[in-house]
C-alpha cells in the first residue's frame, strides 16, 4: 500500500518541489498551508508521516503543532519530520537525540531540501 505523507508548509513552491520528489519515490502526498489545517488533515486522512515546517505564521508554529499532535491520543504516534530554516539563524544543528526531551519530533530536515536526503529521511522514519 502506498504510504501517505502530509506536508505542512506555507511555502507552496517548496511543497511542490517536495511533492514531485516524494511522488517519484512512490509516496502519496497531501499538503496543508498552516498548522490548523494540518491538524485537521492528520485527523481526517491519518498520514503515515508528517513533514512539518517550523516557521509559518509565527516563528515557532511548527513546534506548537508538533506538541498538539503528541497530545492527541488518536494521532500521537504519527512520525514527524521537522523542516528547519536555513541554518536556523544561529547555525545550530538540531540533534534529535539531544533535544528529544523537549522537541516532540522524530527527525529534522534542513532547508534547502536535498531530494535524496528527503526520501531517505522519510523512508527511515515512516513505519513500514
Amino acid at each position, binding site marked *: 500500500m502506498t504510504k501517505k505523507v502530509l506536508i505542512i508548509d506555507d511555502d507552496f513552491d517548496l511543497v511542490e*518541489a517536495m511533492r514531485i520528489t516524494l511522488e*517519484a519515490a512512490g509516496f502519496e502526498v497531501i499538503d496543508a498551508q498552516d498548522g490548523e489545517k494540518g491538524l485537521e488533515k492528520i485527523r481526517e486522512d491519518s498520514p503515515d508521516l508528517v513533514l512539518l515546517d517550523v516557521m509559518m505564521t509565527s516563528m515557532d508554529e511548527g513546534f506548537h503543532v508538533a506538541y498538539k499532535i503528541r497530545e492527541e491520543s488518536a494521532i500521537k504516534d504519527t512520525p514527524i519530520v521537522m523542516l528547519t530554516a536555513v*541554518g536556523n*539563524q*544561529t*547555525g*545550530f544543528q538540531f540533534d534529535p537525540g539531544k533535544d528529544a526531551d523537549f522537541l516532540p519530533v522524530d527527525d529534522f530536515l534542513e532547508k534547502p531540501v536535498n531530494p535524496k536526503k528527503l526520501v531517505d529521511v522519510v523512508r527511515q522514519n515512516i513505519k513500514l
Partner: protein
Amino acid sequence: MTLFPDTPAFSTASMLRRDQWLIRLRWFAALGLFLGVVLLKTIKLGPPTSIFWMGVAVGVLILLNLVYLIFASDKMRLEMPKLVILLNVQMVMDLLVLTLLVYLTGSEESPLTFFYVFHIILASIIFPGGFSYLYSMLVIILYSSLLLMEHSIYVDHICFFHEIHLADDIRIVIAIWFIVVVTMTVSAYLAQSVTERHRRVREKLEIANQKLQEINQTKTTFFRYASHEMKSPVATVQSTLMVIDDVLGEKIDDRVKDMVRRAISRTKEMIEMLKDLADLTYGNFQERQKFEELDLNAFLAELVSDAQPNIDRKNQIISYQAPEMPCKYFGDSNALNKIFVNLISNAIRYTQDQGEIKVVLKQNSRGYLVVVSDNGSGIPDSEQVNIFKEFYRTPSARKQISEGTGLGLAIVMRMVELHDGSIQVESREGYGSKFTITLPIEENL
C-alpha cells in the same frame, strides 16, 4: 606638545564663549571692589591715599573690561591665536591689578591675597592643562616680588590697619570676615561651574553613545531580518533546482542539466552568504544568555574529529594537543563552534594536500589559549591587517579557492569578542599560518 589641542573643547567658538564669560565675571568683580572702596571710605578704614588708589585701580579695571568687551564682540570675529593672546592679556592684567590692590591693602596683612585663588581656578577652566600651573607660578612671582620690594628700600609698606590688634577693631574683623565669605562663595561658584560643565559633557556623551547603540541595534535587526527573509526564497529556489537535477534529470538534456547545476552551486553560495550575515548579528542579540559551562577540551576534540572527513579528502594530517583533563569554560557553544569550525576549515582549505594542521589547547593563569596552525599557503604581511574585515578575501585566497564569503574571520572575531577574548595571527607567505585565540576565564566561572 601642543598647548592648544585641536578639540571641540578648545575650538574658536568655545574659547570665545569663555572669553565672554570671563568679561561678565569681571563686571561683578569690579562692582564688588567698587562697593568695597565706597564702604572703606564710609567707615574710614585704611589710609585715604590707599583708598584713593584703590578707586583708581577699580576704574582701570572697568576701562580695561570695556576694551575686552569690544574685542569679544561677534563683529570682531577674533580667530584662535589672537583670542588666546587676548585671554592671556586679560588674565595677566587682572593679576597685576589684584597685586596692586593687595599692596594697597597691606601686602602680607591683606585678606585680598585669597583672591589669587580664583585666578588659578579660572586659568584651569579657560585654558588647557598646563596653564593653571603657569598662572600659579605667575601669582607666586608677583606676590614674592611685592614682598621683596617692600623689604628692600624701593617700596614702602602700607600699614593698612594702623598698628592695632586686628581683633580689637570690629570694622576690621567684619572686613576680613567679608573677604572670607566672598572667597568661599566665589570658589564654590567656580568649582560648581567646572563640575557642571563636566557633567553636561558627560550627559551629552552618554546620550550620543546610547543613540549610537540604538542605531547599531537597528542595523543589526535589519541585517537579521533581511538575511532571514532572503533565505526562504533562495532555499526554495535551490530545493526546486535540486528536484530538477535529481528527480526530473532524465527528462532534460545534458546542457540544461549543466546549467541547473551551475545555478544550484550559485544558490549554495548565496545561502552561505546569508547564513554568515545572520551569524554576524548573532552576538548582538543573545549577548550572554546562551553561556553555559562546558569542557573546552572535549569540545575541541570533537570538532577536530568532525573535521577528519575533510582532512582525509586532502590527505592531510590533523593533530590535537591538550592537557589530559577537562577544561572547564563558561561560554556559548554555538559561538565557540563558529570560531573553531571557521579556523579549522580555513586551515584545511588553504593548505595543500598532505599538509599538516595542528590544534593546541593550553591553559594559563588568565584563561585558555587555543592555537590553530597549518603549514599552508600563509598570508602576506600586508594582508594580515585586512583579513578580519567583512567581505575581505586576500587576492591569493581568491585565486586558490573561488567560493567563500569573506565573512568567516569577521564572524570569528565577533564570536571571540563575545567571550571577551582576543585573536592574533602570525603568518609567513608560503610557510603557513597560526591563529591564537585567547579566552579569558577571570570572573568567567
